[in-house]
């Protein structure tokens, strides 16, 4: 210890002695320190002396009395009050933060399923504040929440139920290990070098490929080692807004793998679905582009049994394409006016039904085939200004072997609400009322 520092510390320690002790020996000791050359030993001896004197009752300054206590209390209050004024709001904020829920007011955005393990992952909120929850849905009538994590959204669950892909705060895809669904662990963040917002994620049916879509590009990742994914291919797949001043869909990119995992479908162009041959993902190429009948493709799904692709457009047109020759898709069915039928079941607007605003999102859609491929289900979540929320209408069609659609076999109304999700392979649809984390599951007819 430097002499100067030891000297200053020694003098400070003299001041640490009890007042009565200082009155008797303080002056002497300071004189000694002036002549002495204080060292670290001096500092230690003075510290021990100060502690010893403080503990010695002989050096205490009088007994505690009520006036002294009152004075001490007043001084304490004078010090504590400003501190409480400053620290109180900060502490309250920290306490609130510990209970803060990033997506407390956000409804269900999407859900991913692992039917073989009875695991479902739901995502609430936008990418910036998305909250993911892992559920045990082995018994759907009694779902159990196993865990939750702030992973962003939307997300995809690998077919083996061990890996969840989300859109992290950074805009990149993040991979979470949910092999133990009660303890999700973040494995890695994918970096494709693109700064734009990630839109969609999809696992191939065998879980070996993860497709991630940005506004105008699709990336294919080798998922052989989920903790260390390898970028295999980047595909140019531009999506542009519909012409004119009309509303722009919320989801501007969508992805789906064919049941065999050889075809990846993505929404591209203004009204198109592009089919990519991903048999060899490292050399994936554009195989065909499907015309969307002049309307933006909002959702699509492959038939699990037949070589069919069904799509629903922004304004409620259902399209079915035969992929018998994937390079030359042929449209086999077109059903128009689905949104109008959902909005006005009686055929025309009723007086109490408020028309949609011109720039509102007209509806959200979910589309899926039944596991046997015989039925096509489309859920229309129609936005109603009067209800201030969406109400779902579900349509079912019988699908013929050639891909044409029969008459509507079922149309259920108001069975769900807001942002529907159809569980693949299972006959239920999820919906979530706005302003809560609740979700409802309805068995499809």
């Amino acid at each position, binding site marked *: 210890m430097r002499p100067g520092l030891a000297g200053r510390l020694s003098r400070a320690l003299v001041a640490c002695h009890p007042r*009565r*002790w200082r*009155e008797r020996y303080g002056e002497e*000791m300071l004189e*000694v320190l002036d002549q*002495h050359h204080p060292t670290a*030993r001096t500092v230690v*001896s003075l510290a021990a*002396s100060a502690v010893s004197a403080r503990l010695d009752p002989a050096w205490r300054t009088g007994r505690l009395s009520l006036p002294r206590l009152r004075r001490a209390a007043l001084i304490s209050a004078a010090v504590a009050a400003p501190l409480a004024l400053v620290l109180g709001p900060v502490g309250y904020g920290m306490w609130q933060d510990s209970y803060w829920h990033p997506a407390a007011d956000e409804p269900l955005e999407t859900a991913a399923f692992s039917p073989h393990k009875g695991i479902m992952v739901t995502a609430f909120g936008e990418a910036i504040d998305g909250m993911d929850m892992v559920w045990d849905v082995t018994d759907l009538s009694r779902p159990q929440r196993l865990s939750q994590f702030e992973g962003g959204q939307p997300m995809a669950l690998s077919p083996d139920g061990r890996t969840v892909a989300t859109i992290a705060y950074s805009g990149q895809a993040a991979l979470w290990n949910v092999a133990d669904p009660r303890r999700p662990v973040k494995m890695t963040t994918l970096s494709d070098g693109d700064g734009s917002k990630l839109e969609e994620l999809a696992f191939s049916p065998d879980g070996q490929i993860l497709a991630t879509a940005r506004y105008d590009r699709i990336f294919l990742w080798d998922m052989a080692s989920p903790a260390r994914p390898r970028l295999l291919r980047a595909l140019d797949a531009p999506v542009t807004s519909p012409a004119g001043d009309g509303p722009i869909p919320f989801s501007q990119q969508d992805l789906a793998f064919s049941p065999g995992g050889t075809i990846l479908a993505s929404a591209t162009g203004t009204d198109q679905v592009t089919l990519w041959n991903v048999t060899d993902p490292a050399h994936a190429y554009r195989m065909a582009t499907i015309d969307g009948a002049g309307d933006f493709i909002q959702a699509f799904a492959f038939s699990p049994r037949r070589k069919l692709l069904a799509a629903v457009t922004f304004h409620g047109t259902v399209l079915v394409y035969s992929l018998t020759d994937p390079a030359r898709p042929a449209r086999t069915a077109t059903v128009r006016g689905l949104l109008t039928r959902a909005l006005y079941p009686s055929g025309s607007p009723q007086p109490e039904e408020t028309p949609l605003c011109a720039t509102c999102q007209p509806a959200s859609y979910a589309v899926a085939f039944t596991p046997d491929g015989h039925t096509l289900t489309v859920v229309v979540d129609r936005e109603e200004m009067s209800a201030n929320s969406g109400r779902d209408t579900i349509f079912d069609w019988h699908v013929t072997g050639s891909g044409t659609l029969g008459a509507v076999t079922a149309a259920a109304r108001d069975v769900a609400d807001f942002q529907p999700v159809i569980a693949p392979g299972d006959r239920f649809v999820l919906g979530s009322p706005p302003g809560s984390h609740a979700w409802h599951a309805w068995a499809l007819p």
Partner: protein
Amino acid sequence: MRGTSDRPGRFAEPWLLVLTSLADGPKHGYAIMTDIAAFSGITMEPGTLYGALSRLERRGWVRPPAGRRTPPPL
């Protein structure tokens, strides 16, 4: 070698060293320290010295010189 050391051993109790130093007359604190160092070879730090002095003074074995302030009565 054991038994032949010049160090004071158990006679190095601070109060004993202080009393020994004051045996030949009153001294100031720093003078006590240098005296102890001279006759015993022990460097007594101020904290140790005044801890011993305060105990001796309380027992009445030493007293401050005339004119030196004493602590007010409890």
